[in-house]
């Protein structure tokens, strides 16, 4: 039951973009087409899971025992940057098809605040290793769901005439607002 509540909470109620505003840059930036949005969503899922697993390991077994929590930000961002590079190289060797699908999105993820955000968030919440990893997976699923829905809406939006003043980013933000309004409907679910 505890896990069901955590999963619904991470995917819908506290949706990482629409309720916590983490990862807003790629959410606005790479959501023009459903196909690119899906690629970005999968890349985030991949990196966020691995990154959170590694950062919680480092935090629990290295930083906390040595009393070095003040180095958390620096360590985490370096671990994430290194991991992204490594994932990119490994994917290139092992699975060229997956690399082709996710390749272009991987470098962008280093500066995606959702990845660092979730890594810090789980240490703030004091989750155990398993809880942290699960939370990361389902936060990323929430990110993917939100960005794919949003890209679908934006594809339709291109076909209708919007007033000149709000074309581009403003109308995207306003649409995201309406989507956030819809997601607020999940608020009482847990």
């Amino acid at each position: 039951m505890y896990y069901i509540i955590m999963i619904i909470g991470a995917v819908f109620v506290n949706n990482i973009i629409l309720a916590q505003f983490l990862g807003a840059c790629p959410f606005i930036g790479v959501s023009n087409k459903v196909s690119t949005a899906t690629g970005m969503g999968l890349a985030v899922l991949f990196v966020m899971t691995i990154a959170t697993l590694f950062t919680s390991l480092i935090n629990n077994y290295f930083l906390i025992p040595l009393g070095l929590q003040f180095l958390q930000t620096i360590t985490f961002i370096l671990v994430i940057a290194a991991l992204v590079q490594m994932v990119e190289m490994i994917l290139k060797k092992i699975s060229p098809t997956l690399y082709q699908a996710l390749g272009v999105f991987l470098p962008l993820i280093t500066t995606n605040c959702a990845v660092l955000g979730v890594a810090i968030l789980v240490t703030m919440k004091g989750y155990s290793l398993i809880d942290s990893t699960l939370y990361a997976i389902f936060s990323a699923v929430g990110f993917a769901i939100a960005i794919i829905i949003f890209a679908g809406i934006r594809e339709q939006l291109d076909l209708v005439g919007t007033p000149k003043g709000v074309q581009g980013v403003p109308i995207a933000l306003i649409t995201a607002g309406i989507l956030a309004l819809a997601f607020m409907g999940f608020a009482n679910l847990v």
Partner: protein
Amino acid sequence: MSKLSIVTKGFIKENPTLVLVLGTCPALAVTTSVENGIGMGLATTFVLVLSNMFISLLRKITPNEVRIPIFIVVIATFVSIVDLLIQGFVPALAESLGLFIPLIVVNCIVLGRAEAFASKNGVFDSMLDGLGMGIGFTIALVIIGTIREILGSGSILGYEIPFMKGNEILIFVLAPGAFFVFGYVIALTRAFQKK
């Protein structure tokens, strides 16, 4: 380019948030009140000025291939300093900004200025550029924060506004309001710039 225009270009003409649409996460997340906006803006300005200065100092000895990791380490160092300072001296602000102080590291504005300006220009110019961009970011946060605080909680800087209090539109301090206000503020900035 004159020294003054290096500072002032970040205010409106190249405002990092309203024109270039960088740093959207904090612009959406911490603007529930003007006070939070100012706090976040000043913290980011501090990081921008010092990281720009340091990166500019190191620009001649930074190998081109590993410049991004070096930038990130410099930025992360200053962010950690700001984080600890805020926790030590203004714990209330640390409480309300929370997660978003360490997240200054991944604010695209800071890395963007390091790459676009500080790695190519002198130390003093880079500091001025950081200052200008930081102030521009603060201006954007204050504008969004003002609108959201007046409409959403009927007050400004914590002082109640007679008619607005009691007629609050709660949605503006919640998540959807952030997106709406930010969207319209960008649209308005564009309209002003065309003139």
